[in-house]
């Protein structure tokens, strides 16, 4: 899992409570799987903020999830450097066909969510995608087959 600083440790370092909000949202997201209205409320209570303040920050950043995600979150880069070497649409279309879901959707068994993302700062390893916090590089349709087949039998 993602390493996140302990919320109580950061408390002593930050002069403003609101400054803990991003760290707190990461922790809540790890515990709940996504930032449900309940999770937002609990973060707000903990930091003495209004749910509106918490939601305003949570909804600004793409890595905070306001809906549940699949077990494996596949994020395919559509940046220029990936596109130039055969990535972006050709790979996205390939995954869409193979998994029968569109970008933004989750498979009915809740296993995979597909998302198209912007530059992953891996242009030297293009075409690239991420599954959860793992980067996969220099992709080809064959590599994608191997990866998805491997994840399909993994928990």
């Amino acid at each position, binding site marked *: 899992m993602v390493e996140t600083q302990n919320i109580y440790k950061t408390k002593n370092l930050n002069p403003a409570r609101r400054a803990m909000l991003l760290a707190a949202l*990461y922790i809540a997201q790890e515990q709940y799987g996504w930032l449900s209205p309940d999770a937002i409320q609990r973060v707000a209570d903990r930091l003495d903020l209004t749910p509106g303040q918490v939601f305003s920050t949570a909804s600004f950043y793409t*890595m*905070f999830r306001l809906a549940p995600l699949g077990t494996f979150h596949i994020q395919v880069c559509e*940046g*220029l450097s990936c596109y130039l070497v055969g990535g972006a649409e050709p790979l996205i279309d390939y995954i869409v066909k193979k998994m029968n879901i569109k970008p933004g959707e989750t498979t009915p068994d809740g296993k995979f969510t597909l998302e198209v993302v*912007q530059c992953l*700062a891996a242009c*030297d390893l293009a075409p690239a995608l991420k599954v959860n916090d793992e980067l996969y590089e220099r992709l080809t349709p064959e590599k994608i087959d191997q990866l998805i087949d491997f994840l399909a039998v993994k928990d």
Partner: protein
Amino acid sequence: MFEPILTQNIHRPDSEKIATYLAHGGYQAARKALTKHSPEDLIEIVKKSGLRGRGGAGFPAGTKWGFLPKDPDIPKIVAVNTDEGEPGTFKDRQIVECDPHQIIEGVIIASYAIGANRAYVYIRGEFFLGVKRWIKAIADAYENGYLGKDILGTGFNLDMSVHRGAGAYICGEETAMLESLEGKPGNPRRKPPYPAQVGLFGLPTLVHNIETLACIPHIVNRGPEWFANIGTEQSKGPKIFSVSGHVNRPGNYELPLGTPLKEIIYEHAGGIRNKRNLKAIIPGGASTPVLTADQIDTPMSFEDLEKSGSQLGTGAIIVMDETTCMVEAARRLTKFFAHESCGRCVPCRIGSQRLYETLDRIENARGRLDDLSKVEELAQGIDGLTFCPMGAALVNPARSTIAKFRADYEYHIQNKRCPSPA
């Protein structure tokens, strides 16, 4: 042959560990700075070195240090920008993953020079390995007495912590990063006041990109004259160039500022793939204007790229061969900016979307003859009319490709298809 400085350790085994760093002269510069130099000396040394910021704007670092108030009773902050998101750029990822102590040493020296006792690191949320490396490196620096109370017995205190962003390109802009560190949405602030006066939590703040900070220990160790001898008249020192796109060996190459594009692309990055011809180069990341193949002799320096109508930006070189459709390249980059607009200023929020729609229409065979003048009209309504530099940046792909590859656009509009073989 230029000997790498910033990347000298990255190929060693366990390069990210403090033991490796110490075994190769690590933290000697911090010791020297804190025991042998006054803060004023250090500001002078950095000014003399000619170091300019590596995050895109190229502001002289020493001058920036001099902007912070001298009053010792005012608490000051150093904010470390690891929010690398400019498409084409992947140098900061490598520095923080492979040699984080070099940056910490730069932060210690900078903090001592401006009188800051608190440093905040902001790192792009997607850099999972980078976050781990930052946390470990800071913990080890504390353990070895380079951070915390009474550093190296000098009485100087410095605390440092890591804060993760969460997927917003705009947080690489310094004031948006400060907002994000305060727990808010990353909307850039209006300047002035500049962060050196009113920064994080309202305190004077020095914001630097990590490649800038990584230069500091070497300047202190080897002297400002050594640094100023590398590079050109107005662009001093080494620079990490990220090369991607249609080259045989994409990657990071550390070379002196002022190295010609041609040398970087053909000698270091192995030339164009499949022996094709070069068509276009974006020299400094997605937001810098495109160059044509005949501009390949341009030296990669602040002043020469400005003369050629572009910018050094982050030094991220995206190489495109003759099969590339420039309408598609501009469409894709503009889509990125439309997606990443923070939404605060109308020209950027609405303008980027309209600009993308117009390019998308041209690319997808629905272009109209007046679309090119429409793009220019939109660009004029965005450029320079926003709080932050994103407005000026986002018009560059469309504007520069129309100026330099107008034939690609006209072919698309007249023939309803792409001039390049897919």
